[in-house]
C-alpha cells in the first residue's frame, strides 16, 4: 500500500467534504474558462468576418442625422441629404479604387481590378407580403459574394429574371419559373440561393435596370459595395480618397469597423479575465479554509498515523495529495461549468457571437486548478504536520 492509496481511500469516505473543498477552485476556474472562451470566440468571430469581408468597402450616400428639438427637448433626428448615389459616380469610384491598388502593388495593367457592385434597395409588397428588392449588377455581385451558391435553378442572366434568398423563397412559396410582379414589372424566378445566414436570405435580387425601371429610379443606386483585390490592399486609403474626392458619398472600410470592434472586445475581455482572477484568488482562500477545517477534524487520524511511524513530511504529503485531488476535481468541473457558462453568457455579452468550446484550455485549467489547490494546502499541511501525538489524543 502506497501513501497516495491511503489518501484516496480516505477521500472516498469523505467525498462530499472534498467536493465542498474544491468548490472554491471550481468557481474560480469556471469564471476564468468562461471569460477566456468568450473572449476567444469574440475574437474568432471578428477574424472570421475580416477574412470574409476584409477586402471590402462600402460607399453610402452621405446622410447626416440632425437632432431636432425645442429648447432642451430632443424630438428625434432628421436625416438630411440625398438617399441615392447617382450612377454616374461609379466610374469615378472605380478610377480611385483601381488607382490606389495599382499604386500599392505597382501594377501597370489598365484592366479593371476591383469588384464594384452597386445596389438599389427598394421595399415593396409581393402577394401582400413586404419584401426587399435589390437591384444588382449580376456579374459584379457574383464576384463580390464569393460565398453565394444557387441551390435551385440558375443565376441571374436576363433582365426579366429574379434570384430569391432562401428564407424569402420559403416564406412566400416561390418556385423556379414563378412570375412575380414588382411594382407593376413582371419578372420570373430563375434561381433560389442557398442559406447564407445573412440578410441576403430575406431578399429578392433582380438586375439593376429592371429595378430602376420598376421603381422609377433611373440612374440612381442606394449603395456601392467594393471588393478590393486582396485583404492586404489599402482599403482604408481607398475609403479616405473616395471621401475626399467625391461629394455626397461616405465610404467605410470593413477593416476600420473590425478594428474598432476588436478594441472594444479586448477591453471587455480584459475586464472579464481580471474579474475571474479575483474570483480565483477568493476561491483559493475558500480552499485554505475548508482544508484547515479538515485538518482540525482529522487531528485524531493524524495522531494515529504519527504514532505508527508517519513523519512530518509524510503528513504534509497526505494533505498535498488531497490538494492535488481537490485541484484536479475542481479543474475538471470548472472547465465543464466554465464552457457551459460561456455558451450561455457569450452571446449576451458579444451580441449573438457563436461560442465554441476550447479543448486547448482543458489541460491548463487542470494545471492551474491543481496549482491553486496545492498552494492552498501549504498552510493546512504545515499545521497538520505540527500536531503532536499526545495532544491529538488528549483533544478527544
Amino acid at each position, binding site marked *: 500500500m502506497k501513501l497516495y492509496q*491511503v489518501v484516496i*481511500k480516505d477521500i*472516498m469516505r469523505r467525498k462530499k467534504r472534498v467536493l465542498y473543498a474544491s468548490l472554491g477552485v471550481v468557481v474560480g476556474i469556471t469564471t476564468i474558462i468562461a471569460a477566456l472562451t468568450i473572449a476567444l470566440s469574440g475574437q474568432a468571430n471578428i477574424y472570421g468576418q475580416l477574412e470574409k469581408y476584409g477586402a471590402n468597402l462600402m460607399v453610402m450616400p452621405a446622410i447626416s442625422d440632425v437632432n431636432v428639438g425645442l429648447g432642451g427637448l430632443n424630438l428625434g433626428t432628421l436625416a438630411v441629404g440625398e438617399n441615392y448615389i447617382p450612377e454616374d459616380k461609379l466610374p469615378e469610384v472605380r478610377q480611385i479604387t483601381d488607382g490606389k491598388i495599382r499604386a500599392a502593388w505597382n501594377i501597370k495593367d489598365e484592366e479593371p481590378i476591383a469588384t464594384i457592385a452597386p445596389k438599389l434597395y427598394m421595399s415593396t409588397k409581393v402577394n401582400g407580403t413586404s419584401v426587399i428588392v435589390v437591384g444588382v449588377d449580376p456579374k459584379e455581385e457574383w464576384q463580390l459574394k464569393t460565398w453565394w451558391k444557387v441551390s435551385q435553378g440558375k443565376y441571374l442572366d436576363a433582365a426579366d429574371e429574379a434570384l430569391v434568398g432562401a428564407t424569402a423563397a420559403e416564406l412566400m412559396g416561390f418556385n423556379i419559373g414563378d412570375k412575380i410582379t414588382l411594382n407593376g414589372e413582371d419578372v420570373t424566378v430563375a434561381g433560389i440561393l442557398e442559406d447564407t445566414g445573412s440578410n441576403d436570405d430575406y431578399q429578392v435580387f433582380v438586375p439593376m435596370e429592371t429595378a430602376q425601371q420598376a421603381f422609377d429610379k433611373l440612374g440612381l443606386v442606394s449603395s456601392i459595395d467594393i471588393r478590393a483585390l486582396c485583404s492586404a490592399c489599402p482599403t482604408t486609403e481607398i475609403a479616405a480618397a473616395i471621401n475626399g474626392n467625391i461629394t455626397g458619398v461616405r465610404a467605410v472600410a470593413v477593416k476600420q469597423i473590425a478594428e474598432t470592434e476588436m478594441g472594444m472586445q479586448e477591453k471587455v475581455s480584459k475586464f472579464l479575465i481580471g474579474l475571474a482572477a479575483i474570483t480565483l484568488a477568493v476561491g483559493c482562500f475558500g480552499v485554505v479554509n475548508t482544508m484547515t477545517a479538515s485538518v482540525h477534524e482529522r487531528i485524531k487520524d493524524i495522531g*494515529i498515523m504519527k*504514532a*505508527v*511511524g*508517519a513523519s512530518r513530511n509524510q503528513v504534509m504529503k497526505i494533505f498535498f495529495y488531497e490538494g492535488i485531488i481537490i485541484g484536479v476535481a475542481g479543474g475538471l468541473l470548472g472547465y465543464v461549468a466554465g464552457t457551459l457558462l460561456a455558451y450561455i453568457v457569450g452571446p449576451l455579452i458579444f451580441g449573438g457571437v457563436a461560442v465554441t468550446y476550447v479543448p486547448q484550455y482543458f489541460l491548463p485549467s487542470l494545471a492551474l486548478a491543481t496549482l491553486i489547490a496545492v498552494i492552498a494546502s501549504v498552510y493546512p499541511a504545515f499545521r497538520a504536520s505540527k500536531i*503532536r501525538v499526545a495532544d491529538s489524543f488528549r483533544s*478527544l
Partner: protein
Amino acid sequence: MLEINNISKAYGEGTAKVFALNNVSLRVNEGDFIAVMGPSGSGKSTLLNIIGGLDHTSSGEVILDGERIDNLDENALVDIRRGRIAYVFQQYHLIPSLTALENVLLPLTFCGTDNKDQKALGILKRVGLEKRAEHKPSQLSGGEQQRVAIARALVNDPSLILADEPTGNMDRKTGKEILALFDQLNKEGRSIVMVTHDPEIAGYAKEVVVLQDGQIADKINQEGGNRC
C-alpha cells in the same frame, strides 16, 4: 533496554502548576512485562506517553538502548516509532477508511516498504483475524479491533510494546483473550509496559508499578506469581 531517570511532567505555571509526574524513575529490561497501576489522574498515561516519546518531559531523562530520546526532535522520534517501540491504545485508534489488513500495513507504508501483504496477513492470522482482513473497523467488534491494533503494533517487529488500558473497553472474557495475546508476545521476548487500573489484569505482569499522585508508591515483583 529502557531507563527513565527522575522524570517530572508539569502542567500550568506558578501556583496553578500541577505535577502529572513527579520525580519518577523506572527501568524496563529486555523481556519485562510491567503493569502500571494507579487511580485515574495518577499519571499512568502520561508516563506511558513519555516513555514512547509521544509527550515531552518537564525534567529528567529517557534513555532507550543507551541513547537519550526525551530531547529528540520529531524526525528522530519517527525512527523510534518505526520498529523499536509500538503502541496499543484503549480506543484502538484504527483508521476508519482502511480495512483491517490495510491498517496493519499502514506502519510499513510509512516506512516505505510496500507489497508486504503476505507478512501482514500472517500477523493477522496470528491474532486470529485472517478471515476479517477485508473488514473495516466499523464492521469489527471491540475485541477484534484491538487484535487489529496489536497486529499493527507487531508488523514492524518492535522490541518494546506500550499498551494503554488495552482491555479497558472490553468485557471480561474478551479482555482475557487479549491479555493472553500480550502474555504470548512477552514470552517471545518482547518487553511490555501496560497501563491498567484492574488488579486482575495487572496479575499477568511480572512487575507491578503503582503510581499515586505522580509518584511511584510501590513496586511489586511477582515473577512466577499468580497467573490465572
